[in-house]
């Protein structure tokens, strides 16, 4: 399943709500980064969040695995309410995987070691099992032969795919993507997006912050447009791209869809 396939990916969304954000607010000093954000994500659903820079989209998904602390409202992930409680944070992070814009692979470990680190130390898997697990996901992202190389020896696209594999090795129920292709050279964006499309096709619950609208059109069950810390519009891709309701959405779309 690749991006070239016309039409939209079949939805795997169920009724079960896995992420619930209610009235979430966050400040950085005097600057309010998130204002009254309400959002429900269902199991198997794929949500693409877009918006101008500074709109709070990265902050939003980073609040979900507590890389940022929300100050107002409630966040519930997988039935666990996210508070300052350390144990709850750990439980949530085990079930939520994250892929970063800058890959953030560990440079002093091989790709294999990057992928087995957390399963060994957090899920307490035996080494053989962790390695088999890692190889499985490395094959999924199509770089099994790179397993024993170091990150610096891989291209950008391969590194990001390795980062996706690393997150998948923890067998998460939810995957968060924070602008996964923004740091890649253009010719490598496709290989990463293809992997993400395959992941979506298998029914993974995904929250993706991205500017890649082609990907969004194919994959998203719902599009979320954020501006100045608020959710401005939520709609299915068809409605979002062809008949956006809000003026701000229209302005944003006209700016990024020019080419």
């Amino acid at each position: 399943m690749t991006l070239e396939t016309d039409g939209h990916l079949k939805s795997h969304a169920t009724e079960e709500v896995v992420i619930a954000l209610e009235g979430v607010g966050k400040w950085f000093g005097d600057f309010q980064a998130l204002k009254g954000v309400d959002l429900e994500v269902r199991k198997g659903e794929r949500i693409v969040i877009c918006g101008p820079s500074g709109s709070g989209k990265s902050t939003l998904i980073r609040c979900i695995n507590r890389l940022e602390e929300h100050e107002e409202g409630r966040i519930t992930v997988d039935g666990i309410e996210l508070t300052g409680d350390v144990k709850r944070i750990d439980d949530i992070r085990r079930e939520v995987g994250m892929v970063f814009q800058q890959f953030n692979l560990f440079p002093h470990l091989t790709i294999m070691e990057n992928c087995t680190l957390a399963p060994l130390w957090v899920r307490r898997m035996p080494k053989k099992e962790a390695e088999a697990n890692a190889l499985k996901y490395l094959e999924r992202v199509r770089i099994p032969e790179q397993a024993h190389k170091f990150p610096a020896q891989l291209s950008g696209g391969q590194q990001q795919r390795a980062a996706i594999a690393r997150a998948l090795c923890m067998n998460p129920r939810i995957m968060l993507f924070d602008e996964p292709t923004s740091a890649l050279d253009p010719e490598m964006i496709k290989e990463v997006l293809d992997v993400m499309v395959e992941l979506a096709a298998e029914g993974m619950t995904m929250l993706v912050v991205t500017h890649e609208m082609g990907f969004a059109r194919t994959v998203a069950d719902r599009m979320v447009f954020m501006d100045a810390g608020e959710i401005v519009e939520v709609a299915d891709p068809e409605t979002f791209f062809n008949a956006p309701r809000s003026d701000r959405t229209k302005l944003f779309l006209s700016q990024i869809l020019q080419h």
Partner: protein
Amino acid sequence: MPRPRSRTAPWRDPKIRGLIAQAVVLTAVVLGVWWLGRNAAASLARQKIASGFEFLDHTAGFGIIQTLIDYTEQSSYGDALIVGLLNTVLVAVIGIVLATAMGFLLGVARLSRNWLIAKLAAAYVEIVRNVPLLLQIVFWYGGVLRALPGPRQSLTFADVAALNNRGLFVPRFTPEAEAMTILIAALIGVAAALGVADWAKRRQLRTGRLFPTGRVGLALVLGLPLLAAVATGFPFAVSIPELKGFNYQGGIQILPELMALTLALAIYTASYIGEIVRSGIEGVPRGQSEAAAALGLKHGLALRLVVLPQALRIIVPPLTSQYLNLTKNSSLAVAVGYPDLVAVFAGTVLNQTGQAIEVLAITMALYLALSLLTSALMNWYNRAYALKGG
């Protein structure tokens, strides 16, 4: 919209855990300090050692071989402290000046295109840095300066100075009343040089013409006092050291302890300064000197206007660090008998009074004050001169 208060979380809240951890550590530290203090009080009482700082007013009862202020055996311990401190400052200042001069020369030599000079400089650094400073100090003192011949067989220089195992004897110039004019002339010279520099710069900006500011300035600063000295008939009482009996009388005696210490400190620190200067110059990207050359600037100008200012930014912070190291290393004076702060105060005074805690506290506090002062200066320099932006 006002910020809501964060909800209080259960006992697994990381903030609460952090507070508990800090409380535990703090209690442990306080308890530890209290236990140590109790032991100390008991030990002091047992050994009948006094406490408090009144001892600073007591009579010292010992002489010091080099004193920059008036000091006799009737002076107090407090006076001895000041003598030691001044001796440390003397070594530090002379050492820093020498080390900086030698270090800069060394750094430039390391980068020289002359193969022999570069290699010799590298050898200097590799040899000096890998031998302990204390050994070098002791070597210069015991192995060289003390091995010099006695006063009767001194090495003499033009009959006005003599070098032997008691020290270096040089003429002493005591200024008489008219010597004031020389000082005033020097100040006028400096002011005039600055004025000329300012005028020349403005003229250059206006008309583009260059003026030999450096040479004229130097002539003013050196020439005016010289004229004044000649005009007043050189108003100094000169005391030339002369061999009388078994030793030299008159003049100034520079102790071999001081010489060995300063020499060793300067040589050792210069090797570090040399490396700092080298990495400072190398740290300026080559593109800078290439661009300067492409603009037609000659080598000397390019160095002065483009490379050196940038190199200095890299050089100054570690340089001040080395100055601080030199000052702290001067405490090794105790190994050769030079009466610096540590030798006089933390050595003799501590042994005589037995008040180790007070003496060492004062000594360490003095060095700490110096360190903190230097750090503050360095931070100020970094803030003021760091390249803005980027």
